[in-house]
Protein backbone atom coordinates (compact mmCIF):
# COMPACT_ATOMS: atom_id res chain seq x y z
CA UNK A 1 0.00 0.00 0.00
CA UNK A 2 1.33 3.44 -0.86
CA UNK A 3 0.54 6.82 0.74
CA UNK A 4 -2.19 7.68 -1.75
CA UNK A 5 -4.00 4.40 -1.15
CA UNK A 6 -3.56 4.85 2.58
CA UNK A 7 -5.28 8.22 2.44
CA UNK A 8 -8.17 6.70 0.53
CA UNK A 9 -8.82 3.54 2.51
CA UNK A 10 -6.39 3.52 5.44
CA UNK A 11 -8.55 5.93 7.44
CA UNK A 12 -11.40 3.43 7.31
CA UNK A 13 -9.51 1.06 9.59
CA UNK A 14 -11.74 -0.20 12.36
CA UNK A 15 -15.00 0.83 10.66
CA UNK A 16 -15.73 -2.49 8.99
CA UNK A 17 -15.76 -0.82 5.57
CA UNK A 18 -12.50 -2.38 4.45
CA UNK A 19 -11.35 -5.98 4.47
CA UNK A 20 -9.03 -7.49 7.05
CA UNK A 21 -6.29 -7.70 4.44
CA UNK A 22 -6.65 -3.98 3.67
CA UNK A 23 -6.56 -3.16 7.34
CA UNK A 24 -3.37 -5.18 7.77
CA UNK A 25 -1.79 -3.50 4.75
CA UNK A 26 -2.78 -0.06 6.10
CA UNK A 27 -1.30 -0.82 9.52
CA UNK A 28 1.88 -2.06 7.92
CA UNK A 29 2.17 1.09 5.82
CA UNK A 30 1.48 3.35 8.80
CA UNK A 31 4.23 1.56 10.67
CA UNK A 32 6.67 2.35 7.92
CA UNK A 33 5.51 5.85 6.87
CA UNK A 34 5.72 8.62 9.46
CA UNK A 35 3.52 10.98 7.39
CA UNK A 36 0.72 8.46 7.09
CA UNK A 37 1.11 7.47 10.73
CA UNK A 38 0.64 11.13 11.69
CA UNK A 39 -2.36 11.34 9.39
CA UNK A 40 -3.89 8.25 11.00
CA UNK A 41 -3.26 9.66 14.46
CA UNK A 42 -4.78 12.98 13.52
CA UNK A 43 -7.83 11.27 12.08
CA UNK A 44 -8.25 9.07 15.17
CA UNK A 45 -8.30 12.21 17.26
CA UNK A 46 -10.75 13.91 14.93
CA UNK A 47 -12.94 10.82 14.88
CA UNK A 48 -13.00 10.72 18.68
CA UNK A 49 -14.07 14.34 18.75
CA UNK A 50 -16.56 13.68 16.01
CA UNK A 51 -18.04 10.94 18.14
CA UNK A 52 -18.72 13.50 20.88
CA UNK A 53 -20.75 15.50 18.45
CA UNK A 54 -22.40 12.32 17.26
CA UNK A 55 -23.24 11.33 20.82
CA UNK A 56 -24.66 14.77 21.52
CA UNK A 57 -27.14 14.35 18.69
CA UNK A 58 -27.61 10.58 18.73
CA UNK A 59 -30.93 10.58 20.54
CA UNK A 60 -32.15 13.89 19.20
CA UNK A 61 -35.63 13.82 17.78
CA UNK A 62 -38.29 16.23 16.68
CA UNK A 63 -40.16 17.89 19.55
CA UNK A 64 -43.63 16.65 20.42
CA UNK A 65 -45.16 19.87 19.12
CA UNK A 66 -44.26 18.80 15.58
CA UNK A 67 -46.38 15.68 15.91
CA UNK A 68 -49.20 17.74 17.37
CA UNK A 69 -49.15 20.16 14.46
CA UNK A 70 -49.03 17.32 11.97
CA UNK A 71 -52.00 15.58 13.54
CA UNK A 72 -53.94 18.84 13.42
CA UNK A 73 -53.14 19.10 9.74
CA UNK A 74 -54.18 15.49 9.22
CA UNK A 75 -57.53 16.18 10.89
CA UNK A 76 -57.98 19.30 8.78
CA UNK A 77 -57.27 17.25 5.66
CA UNK A 78 -59.63 14.54 6.81
CA UNK A 79 -62.67 16.83 7.06
CA UNK A 80 -63.09 17.47 3.31
CA UNK A 81 -62.58 13.74 2.73
CA UNK A 82 -65.41 12.94 5.10
CA UNK A 83 -67.59 15.60 3.54
CA UNK A 84 -67.00 14.13 0.10
CA UNK A 85 -67.66 10.64 1.43
CA UNK A 86 -70.89 11.69 3.11
CA UNK A 87 -72.03 13.55 0.02
CA UNK A 88 -71.24 10.48 -2.04
CA UNK A 89 -73.17 8.27 0.35
CA UNK A 90 -76.18 10.57 0.27
CA UNK A 91 -76.05 10.76 -3.51
CA UNK A 92 -75.76 6.99 -3.78
CA UNK A 93 -78.70 6.40 -1.46
CA UNK A 94 -80.70 9.04 -3.32
CA UNK A 95 -80.01 7.37 -6.64
CA UNK A 96 -80.88 3.97 -5.22
CA UNK A 97 -84.16 5.32 -3.82
CA UNK A 98 -84.99 6.98 -7.14
CA UNK A 99 -84.25 3.75 -8.99
CA UNK A 100 -86.48 1.82 -6.60
CA UNK A 101 -89.33 4.31 -7.08
CA UNK A 102 -88.97 4.13 -10.85
CA UNK A 103 -88.97 0.34 -10.66
CA UNK A 104 -92.13 0.28 -8.52
CA UNK A 105 -93.94 2.73 -10.81
CA UNK A 106 -92.90 0.77 -13.88
CA UNK A 107 -94.09 -2.45 -12.32
CA UNK A 108 -97.42 -0.91 -11.40
CA UNK A 109 -97.92 0.41 -14.90
CA UNK A 110 -96.97 -2.90 -16.40
CA UNK A 111 -99.27 -4.74 -14.01
CA UNK A 112 -102.22 -2.45 -14.64
CA UNK A 113 -101.65 -2.76 -18.38
CA UNK A 114 -101.76 -6.55 -18.11
CA UNK A 115 -105.24 -6.84 -16.48
CA UNK A 116 -107.25 -4.96 -19.15
CA UNK A 117 -105.87 -7.34 -21.70
CA UNK A 118 -107.12 -10.27 -19.66
CA UNK A 119 -110.54 -8.61 -19.17
CA UNK A 120 -110.75 -7.75 -22.84
CA UNK A 121 -110.01 -11.35 -23.66
CA UNK A 122 -112.82 -12.52 -21.38
CA UNK A 123 -115.29 -9.99 -22.71
CA UNK A 124 -114.43 -10.70 -26.32
CA UNK A 125 -114.83 -14.41 -25.65
CA UNK A 126 -118.28 -13.87 -24.21
CA UNK A 127 -119.10 -11.41 -26.97
CA UNK A 128 -118.51 -14.06 -29.54
CA UNK A 129 -120.75 -16.42 -27.58
CA UNK A 130 -123.49 -13.78 -27.48
CA UNK A 131 -123.06 -13.21 -31.16
CA UNK A 132 -123.64 -16.90 -31.76
CA UNK A 133 -126.75 -16.77 -29.59
CA UNK A 134 -128.24 -13.92 -31.57
CA UNK A 135 -127.41 -15.49 -34.90
CA UNK A 136 -128.22 -19.12 -34.18
CA UNK A 137 -130.80 -18.83 -31.37
CA UNK A 138 -128.54 -20.71 -28.99
CA UNK A 139 -128.55 -20.10 -25.23
CA UNK A 140 -126.09 -17.50 -23.94
CA UNK A 141 -123.84 -19.17 -21.46
CA UNK A 142 -122.12 -17.03 -18.92
CA UNK A 143 -119.15 -18.91 -17.70
CA UNK A 144 -119.19 -18.39 -13.95
CA UNK A 145 -115.80 -20.03 -13.55
CA UNK A 146 -114.04 -17.39 -15.52
CA UNK A 147 -116.11 -14.63 -13.90
CA UNK A 148 -116.83 -13.16 -17.31
CA UNK A 149 -119.54 -10.63 -17.94
CA UNK A 150 -122.05 -10.87 -20.78
CA UNK A 151 -121.54 -7.60 -22.58
CA UNK A 152 -124.63 -5.57 -23.18
CA UNK A 153 -125.51 -4.67 -26.76
CA UNK A 154 -123.74 -1.47 -27.84
CA UNK A 155 -121.39 -1.52 -24.90
CA UNK A 156 -117.65 -1.03 -25.35
CA UNK A 157 -115.35 -3.67 -23.94
CA UNK A 158 -114.44 -2.52 -20.44
CA UNK A 159 -112.16 -4.28 -18.02
CA UNK A 160 -113.70 -5.32 -14.74
CA UNK A 161 -110.94 -3.41 -12.94
CA UNK A 162 -111.81 -0.19 -14.72
CA UNK A 163 -115.52 -0.24 -13.90
CA UNK A 164 -117.62 -0.87 -10.83
CA UNK A 165 -119.52 -4.06 -10.13
CA UNK A 166 -122.92 -3.81 -8.49
CA UNK A 167 -124.88 -6.72 -7.12
CA UNK A 168 -128.46 -6.20 -8.19
CA UNK A 169 -131.64 -8.16 -7.48
CA UNK A 170 -134.09 -7.77 -10.31
CA UNK A 171 -136.83 -9.54 -12.20
CA UNK A 172 -135.55 -11.47 -15.18
CA UNK A 173 -137.78 -9.33 -17.43
CA UNK A 174 -135.67 -6.30 -16.49
CA UNK A 175 -132.79 -7.77 -18.48
CA UNK A 176 -134.72 -6.89 -21.61
CA UNK A 177 -134.35 -3.24 -20.66
CA UNK A 178 -130.61 -3.74 -20.93
CA UNK A 179 -131.03 -5.11 -24.44
CA UNK A 180 -130.74 -8.77 -23.59
CA UNK A 181 -133.25 -11.35 -24.90
CA UNK A 182 -135.49 -12.73 -22.12
CA UNK A 183 -137.59 -15.90 -22.15
CA UNK A 184 -141.20 -15.08 -21.28
CA UNK A 185 -141.72 -18.22 -19.17
CA UNK A 186 -139.48 -17.08 -16.34
CA UNK A 187 -139.78 -13.36 -16.85
CA UNK A 188 -141.26 -12.71 -13.43
CA UNK A 189 -138.50 -14.60 -11.55
CA UNK A 190 -136.26 -12.62 -9.24
CA UNK A 191 -132.62 -13.06 -9.99
CA UNK A 192 -129.35 -11.74 -8.57
CA UNK A 193 -126.94 -10.36 -11.13
CA UNK A 194 -123.63 -8.57 -11.09
CA UNK A 195 -123.82 -5.43 -13.15
CA UNK A 196 -120.64 -4.01 -14.61
CA UNK A 197 -120.92 -0.23 -14.77
CA UNK A 198 -118.35 1.91 -16.55
CA UNK A 199 -116.81 5.02 -14.99
CA UNK A 200 -119.30 7.19 -16.89
CA UNK A 201 -122.20 5.35 -15.23
CA UNK A 202 -123.39 3.34 -18.23
CA UNK A 203 -123.95 -0.44 -17.74
CA UNK A 204 -121.51 -2.45 -19.77
CA UNK A 205 -122.10 -6.08 -18.87
CA UNK A 206 -124.05 -8.45 -16.73
CA UNK A 207 -123.14 -11.64 -14.90
CA UNK A 208 -125.59 -14.08 -13.38
CA UNK A 209 -125.31 -15.25 -9.83
CA UNK A 210 -125.22 -19.01 -9.55
CA UNK A 211 -127.53 -19.16 -6.44
CA UNK A 212 -130.53 -18.14 -8.57
CA UNK A 213 -129.81 -19.98 -11.79
CA UNK A 214 -127.83 -23.10 -11.04
CA UNK A 215 -127.37 -23.68 -14.72
CA UNK A 216 -125.82 -20.25 -15.02
CA UNK A 217 -127.79 -19.42 -18.08
CA UNK A 218 -129.80 -16.41 -19.14
CA UNK A 219 -133.06 -17.53 -20.49
Amino acid at each position, binding site marked *: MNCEEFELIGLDSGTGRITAAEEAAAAEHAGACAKCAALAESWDLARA*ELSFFGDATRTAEAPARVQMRLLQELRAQKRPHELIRRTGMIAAWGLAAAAAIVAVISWQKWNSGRHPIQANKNISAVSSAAQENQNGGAVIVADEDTGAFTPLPGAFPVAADDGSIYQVRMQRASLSALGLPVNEEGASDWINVDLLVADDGTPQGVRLHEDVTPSGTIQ
Partner: protein
Amino acid sequence: MKVSDERDDVLLRRAAKGDENAFTVLYHRHQASLFRYALRMTGSAWAAEEIVQDVFMTLIRQPKKYDADKGEVGAFLFGVTRNRVMKHLERLPRELPLDPQLDSGVTNEPVDMLTPAFWAERRERVEQVRDAVLSLPAEFREAVVLCELEELSYEEAAQKSGCPIGTIRSRLHRGRALLMARLELLRDVPRRASAG
Protein backbone atom coordinates in the same frame (compact mmCIF):
# COMPACT_ATOMS: atom_id res chain seq x y z
CA MET B 1 -52.07 -7.44 12.27
CA LYS B 2 -51.30 -4.55 14.61
CA VAL B 3 -50.81 -1.08 13.19
CA SER B 4 -47.23 -1.01 14.42
CA ASP B 5 -46.45 -4.11 12.36
CA GLU B 6 -47.79 -2.72 9.12
CA ARG B 7 -45.47 -1.85 6.25
CA ASP B 8 -44.72 1.80 5.58
CA ASP B 9 -46.65 1.92 2.32
CA VAL B 10 -49.73 0.40 3.98
CA LEU B 11 -49.47 2.93 6.78
CA LEU B 12 -49.14 5.73 4.28
CA ARG B 13 -52.27 4.63 2.43
CA ARG B 14 -54.18 4.50 5.68
CA ALA B 15 -52.78 7.85 6.80
CA ALA B 16 -53.85 9.37 3.48
CA LYS B 17 -57.40 8.33 4.36
CA GLY B 18 -57.11 10.11 7.68
CA ASP B 19 -56.04 7.24 9.94
CA GLU B 20 -54.24 9.02 12.78
CA ASN B 21 -52.84 5.85 14.32
CA ALA B 22 -51.26 4.82 11.05
CA PHE B 23 -49.76 8.27 10.60
CA THR B 24 -48.43 8.33 14.15
CA VAL B 25 -46.71 4.98 13.70
CA LEU B 26 -45.21 6.10 10.40
CA TYR B 27 -44.07 9.38 11.93
CA HIS B 28 -42.40 7.74 14.90
CA ARG B 29 -40.70 5.26 12.64
CA HIS B 30 -38.88 7.94 10.66
CA GLN B 31 -38.90 11.29 12.41
CA ALA B 32 -35.84 10.75 14.61
CA SER B 33 -33.44 9.76 11.84
CA LEU B 34 -34.71 12.57 9.62
CA PHE B 35 -34.45 15.08 12.43
CA ARG B 36 -30.89 13.98 13.30
CA TYR B 37 -29.81 14.24 9.69
CA ALA B 38 -31.33 17.70 9.36
CA LEU B 39 -29.87 18.78 12.70
CA ARG B 40 -26.36 17.60 11.87
CA MET B 41 -26.51 19.16 8.45
CA THR B 42 -27.95 22.51 9.47
CA GLY B 43 -26.61 22.77 13.02
CA SER B 44 -29.95 24.26 14.05
CA ALA B 45 -32.64 22.45 15.98
CA TRP B 46 -35.18 25.03 14.83
CA ALA B 47 -34.28 24.45 11.20
CA ALA B 48 -34.35 20.69 11.68
CA GLU B 49 -37.76 20.90 13.31
CA GLU B 50 -39.10 23.05 10.51
CA ILE B 51 -37.68 20.72 7.89
CA VAL B 52 -39.10 17.55 9.47
CA GLN B 53 -42.47 19.18 9.89
CA ASP B 54 -42.40 20.34 6.29
CA VAL B 55 -41.52 16.84 5.07
CA PHE B 56 -44.40 15.19 6.89
CA MET B 57 -46.77 18.00 5.89
CA THR B 58 -45.94 17.15 2.30
CA LEU B 59 -46.74 13.53 3.06
CA ILE B 60 -50.12 14.51 4.50
CA ARG B 61 -51.08 16.98 1.80
CA GLN B 62 -49.69 15.14 -1.19
CA PRO B 63 -49.41 11.44 -0.35
CA LYS B 64 -49.53 10.61 -4.04
CA LYS B 65 -46.10 12.16 -4.45
CA TYR B 66 -44.78 8.91 -3.10
CA ASP B 67 -44.33 6.36 -5.86
CA ALA B 68 -43.90 2.82 -4.55
CA ASP B 69 -42.13 1.82 -7.77
CA LYS B 70 -39.29 4.23 -7.06
CA GLY B 71 -38.46 2.92 -3.60
CA GLU B 72 -39.54 2.64 -0.04
CA VAL B 73 -41.28 5.30 1.99
CA GLY B 74 -38.20 5.79 4.17
CA ALA B 75 -36.03 6.53 1.15
CA PHE B 76 -38.68 8.90 -0.18
CA LEU B 77 -38.84 10.75 3.12
CA PHE B 78 -35.08 11.00 3.31
CA GLY B 79 -34.96 12.32 -0.24
CA VAL B 80 -37.50 15.03 0.56
CA THR B 81 -35.64 15.87 3.76
CA ARG B 82 -32.37 16.09 1.90
CA ASN B 83 -33.87 18.46 -0.66
CA ARG B 84 -35.24 20.66 2.10
CA VAL B 85 -31.89 20.65 3.89
CA MET B 86 -30.00 21.62 0.73
CA LYS B 87 -32.47 24.42 0.03
CA HIS B 88 -32.08 25.60 3.58
CA LEU B 89 -28.29 25.58 3.28
CA GLU B 90 -28.49 27.52 0.04
CA ARG B 91 -30.73 30.09 1.66
CA LEU B 92 -28.95 30.24 5.00
CA PRO B 93 -25.46 28.85 4.49
CA ARG B 94 -24.76 28.57 8.12
CA GLU B 95 -26.52 28.97 11.42
CA LEU B 96 -24.14 29.18 14.31
CA PRO B 97 -26.22 29.34 17.48
CA LEU B 98 -25.86 26.11 19.39
CA ASP B 99 -29.14 24.74 20.56
CA PRO B 100 -28.99 23.95 24.25
CA GLN B 101 -31.15 20.89 23.63
CA LEU B 102 -28.20 19.22 21.99
CA ASP B 103 -26.40 18.77 25.26
CA SER B 104 -29.35 17.98 27.47
CA GLY B 105 -28.32 14.71 29.08
CA VAL B 106 -27.28 13.09 25.84
CA THR B 107 -24.35 10.90 26.69
CA ASN B 108 -23.43 7.30 27.32
CA GLU B 109 -21.07 8.15 30.15
CA PRO B 110 -21.93 7.28 33.75
CA VAL B 111 -23.44 10.22 35.61
CA ASP B 112 -20.70 10.41 38.24
CA MET B 113 -18.19 11.24 35.52
CA LEU B 114 -20.06 14.40 34.66
CA THR B 115 -18.15 16.76 36.84
CA PRO B 116 -18.51 20.46 35.97
CA ALA B 117 -15.01 20.51 34.47
CA PHE B 118 -15.67 17.43 32.37
CA TRP B 119 -18.99 18.87 31.25
CA ALA B 120 -17.50 22.22 30.31
CA GLU B 121 -14.63 20.64 28.38
CA ARG B 122 -16.90 18.28 26.61
CA ARG B 123 -19.32 21.01 25.69
CA GLU B 124 -16.50 23.08 24.30
CA ARG B 125 -15.24 20.18 22.23
CA VAL B 126 -18.71 19.38 20.94
CA GLU B 127 -19.10 23.01 19.86
CA GLN B 128 -15.73 22.95 18.13
CA VAL B 129 -16.54 19.77 16.25
CA ARG B 130 -19.95 21.06 15.37
CA ASP B 131 -18.46 24.28 14.01
CA ALA B 132 -15.91 22.27 12.07
CA VAL B 133 -18.60 20.05 10.56
CA LEU B 134 -20.75 23.02 9.68
CA SER B 135 -17.83 24.75 8.02
CA LEU B 136 -17.60 21.96 5.45
CA PRO B 137 -19.19 22.44 2.03
CA ALA B 138 -22.60 20.78 1.91
CA GLU B 139 -21.57 17.74 -0.17
CA PHE B 140 -18.58 16.96 2.03
CA ARG B 141 -20.58 17.63 5.15
CA GLU B 142 -23.23 15.22 4.00
CA ALA B 143 -20.66 12.51 3.38
CA VAL B 144 -19.21 13.03 6.86
CA VAL B 145 -22.64 13.08 8.48
CA LEU B 146 -23.80 9.93 6.73
CA CYS B 147 -20.59 7.92 6.94
CA GLU B 148 -19.09 9.10 10.22
CA LEU B 149 -22.05 10.22 12.31
CA GLU B 150 -24.81 8.00 10.97
CA GLU B 151 -22.20 5.26 10.45
CA LEU B 152 -23.73 4.13 7.18
CA SER B 153 -21.82 2.01 4.71
CA TYR B 154 -20.58 3.64 1.53
CA GLU B 155 -23.32 1.88 -0.38
CA GLU B 156 -26.06 3.15 1.91
CA ALA B 157 -24.64 6.65 1.94
CA ALA B 158 -24.41 6.65 -1.84
CA GLN B 159 -28.00 5.49 -2.10
CA LYS B 160 -29.21 8.21 0.23
CA SER B 161 -27.20 10.89 -1.49
CA GLY B 162 -28.19 9.69 -4.93
CA CYS B 163 -24.66 9.44 -6.22
CA PRO B 164 -22.15 6.67 -7.01
CA ILE B 165 -20.10 5.03 -4.26
CA GLY B 166 -16.91 6.45 -5.72
CA THR B 167 -18.29 9.95 -5.37
CA ILE B 168 -19.16 9.36 -1.75
CA ARG B 169 -15.67 8.00 -1.03
CA SER B 170 -14.13 10.97 -2.74
CA ARG B 171 -16.32 13.43 -0.87
CA LEU B 172 -15.62 11.70 2.42
CA HIS B 173 -11.89 11.75 1.75
CA ARG B 174 -11.92 15.47 1.10
CA GLY B 175 -14.35 16.11 3.93
CA ARG B 176 -12.10 14.28 6.36
CA ALA B 177 -9.09 16.28 5.24
CA LEU B 178 -10.92 19.57 5.65
CA LEU B 179 -12.37 18.48 8.98
CA MET B 180 -8.97 17.48 10.36
CA ALA B 181 -7.48 20.79 9.28
CA ARG B 182 -10.36 22.69 10.81
CA LEU B 183 -10.22 20.78 14.08
CA GLU B 184 -6.47 21.30 14.29
CA LEU B 185 -7.06 24.98 13.87
CA LEU B 186 -9.83 25.08 16.47
CA ARG B 187 -7.71 23.08 18.91
CA ASP B 188 -4.84 25.51 18.45
CA VAL B 189 -6.89 28.60 19.23
CA PRO B 190 -7.32 28.00 22.97
CA ARG B 191 -3.72 26.82 23.24
CA ARG B 192 -2.45 29.97 21.61
CA ALA B 193 -4.80 32.08 23.68
CA SER B 194 -3.61 30.47 26.90
CA ALA B 195 0.05 30.66 25.76
CA GLY B 196 -0.29 34.35 25.04
